[in-house]
């Protein structure tokens, strides 16, 4: 049973698990998917990539930002059967750039993709490798909008 107490202007309620077992009757306002003010995830409603997504960490803004954007854009818009298969060159350039800054893009052995893998593997491996090596990047599913870059586990 919940207990309610007043201390001046402050109200204190103690609740047990059972008290909160029933679904909430509080109403929340419906979200507008096209709200221009809202923070967006990785993919904007228009289909473009949101380079400012917190999920990317510093990837798009660092010294290798341009290479990263080229590679990732190519992959994103790739219509090939094996997605990103035509993007090898960009990924190679990006990797070269990243190797020049080992402090920023620590190379973990099994994460660094080799160019003879299929481009899809390399694309996802690059992204996950880049993601996991950057301490600031969340485990983001790159195809899902990530509305909250923070706090969610």
């Amino acid at each position, binding site marked *: 049973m*919940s207990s309610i107490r007043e201390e001046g202007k402050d*109200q204190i309620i103690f609740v047990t698990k059972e008290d909160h077992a029933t679904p909430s009757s509080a109403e929340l306002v419906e979200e507008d998917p096209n709200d221009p003010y809202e923070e967006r995830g990785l993919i904007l409603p228009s289909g473009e990539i949101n380079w400012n997504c917190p999920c990317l960490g510093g990837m798009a*803004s660092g010294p290798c930002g341009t290479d990263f954007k080229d590679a990732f854009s190519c992959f994103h818009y790739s219509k090939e059967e094996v997605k990103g298969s035509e993007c090898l060159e960009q990924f190679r350039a990006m990797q070269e750039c990243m190797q020049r800054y080992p402090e920023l893009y620590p190379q973990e052995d099994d994460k660094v993709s080799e160019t003879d893998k299929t481009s899809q593997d390399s694309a996802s491996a690059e992204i996950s490798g880049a993601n996991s090596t950057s301490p600031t990047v969340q485990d983001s599913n790159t195809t899902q909008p990530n509305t909250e870059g923070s706090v969610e586990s």
Partner: protein
Amino acid sequence: MLKCRNVWKKLAPLARASSTVCRQNVRRAGLPNGRIPARVPVAHMSTGPTGGGGENHLYVLLVGAACLGGGIYAYQTIKGDQQRYQDRINEISSRSQKAATEEPTTPIQSEPPAVKASKTEAVPEPETQAAPSPEEPSPPVPDVELAAAPSETAEPPPADEPVVEAPQEEAAEPPAARVVEEADEPVVEAPPEEAAEPPAARVVEEEQSPPSEPSPAELTEPPPAPVVESEPTAAAAAESPSAEPPEPQPEVVAVSGVDSTPASLKVPSHTPYLLIGGGTASFAAARSIRARDPGAKVLIVTDEPDLPYMRPPLSKELWFSDDPSVTETLRFKQWNGKERSIYFQPASFYINPEELDSAENGGVAVLTGKKVVQMDVRGNKVKLDDETEISYDKCLIATGGVPRNLQVIERAGEEVTQKTTLFRKIDDFKSLDKVTRNIKSITIIGGGFLGSELACALGRRSHESDLEVIQMYPEKGNMGKVLPEYLSNWTTEKVKREGVKVITEALVKSVTCKDDKLEIQLKDGRLVKTDHIVAAVGLEPNVDLAKSAGLEVDSDFGGYRVNAELQARSNIWVAGDAACFYDIRLGRRRVEHHDHAVVSGRLAGENMTGANKPYWHQSMFWSDLGPDVGYEAIGIVDSSLPTVGVFAKATAKDTPKAATEQSGTGIRSESETEDTATSPVASSTPAPAMEQHKDDYGKGVIFYLRDKVVVGIILWNVFNRMPIARKIIKDGEEHADLNEVAKLFNIHED
């Protein structure tokens, strides 16, 4: 010779006349003797008979001597200048070497890539420099010698300290470069080249020594003036005699990489994006700009010596580190063992300011140790404390603030102020760490976030050493202005359990220093004796630029007044602690939290690149007070508002420590662009089992209401539910039963 003759003709009568006067004087002097001064010892006129012919010879000699003397003087001055210049350069290089060795992150690794990437012309130049410049078309012989001379000094090239090199290399550069390039290349390699212009011009004319002077001297005196001006001035300067010191060449705005190469003091004269202040908001904006504007060139100007870093660990995690060298490394370990530095990015992320203009893909450059003192909004430029001017297209002011101090301490004299710490920066952390190792008692004045966190951190340290930690404040309990009274009291008990002696309702009347100990006299008569004081009594937003820039300052909250899009005036935005902005949902406010700095910095960056979005994504904040108490909060959390708190009975699982262990990420609450380790202390003693007490506020949700609308929420020992809280505040609805709203948080679950 003809000239001489004419001059002589003119001078001769004069000379004769003066000599006559002289002779007359001598005669008068010698009058008593009645002798004619053929050989009067007083006569300064040397030599010879006083005949007319003799006079002529005399005058020829005199004039000749005068000319010779003048020539010798001129020669010595020039030599002296050269010597002075050499001394200056040596002094600077020794200075730079000292400074460079102090820098923890050396620029060297960044130098090669940066140099390769961006210095298109500069790099080949010094190389070709070493090889004699006969390769260069048309340099007159003096130029070769000139080039050779500095290039020799530039011998210990890029492999070594780039710091020392910069002046020499650029000194070497100008002569050769100048000869090749034309004077109208203001932007890219302009700085060194414009430095070169006067040298080359002069080389053509005559002396070689002065040319080598101005260029380095200009480098060492980086005062203002836009690049354009250097052209006519340089030309004019070239005509003037070479003895002229380099001073009149201020316009060589050669860029300087001060962040990691303190010796070369060259600054870009123009930058598309200028960010004033090098803290969290500024970094977030830089990142946002770079993400949205491909190839953007961003210049951060900060008066701190450090690259952008995050503040929260300075009062939390860094104190809990086991690493004895933590004050140097500034790295902290999160609960899951993952370590990170408080710096947002290592030095290799940034490029040198001198390379900013030429960087193909742009970049972020940080100019440390420079303060912006004046802002010219009409002219779109700022002036630094060393008179350099930088013009911009878009500017962000993210100057943060300065810790406030108690008036009684300020007036108490130097003995007291020396034993007082105002805590905000890395240096403050380092010095406080050192101090607390050597003293017996420390007092923290202030019961807010910073004061309480420091008290808890130091309280924990007191378990190992016998350091007495006292915390005093005017409120009735810790976080008295934030938490409702019952919760504030509960928190105070927890803080006391961390080993802190808490003195509530304490108003400081005076502080004196007696026998090397501080005595704090409280208004109610109590006396507290201690060795050191930390004053955590608030932040004064830094609005120094308001006057020169003509920006509005808010009288209620302090800080620059900006609109909902964080804009103060055209092309000027303000973010972070210094911004008093209009929050569409919650009204005008100023927020001094880390996540707000990130959110507002990012928003400002977006708006600087054309987004025009208002402040909408509500920022949050968090605090940990020991292993048992941790909370996240969002919105307006003011204890003067009516609150409704919904609590569950807590189990041992509901602590910040447990939350991080469970989620395995070591990150309890994160700001949006940076992971910040907020996991609390590794407590050596196990957390006491939670009492099954009615008044045990183990975990819950507290709603802050304003006119029945929820404007603030605290998640008390309940984690990873911030999005729901954010949603409720965004809706701004009136909810009849807040218990129902609380259900949305599932506080009984983990």
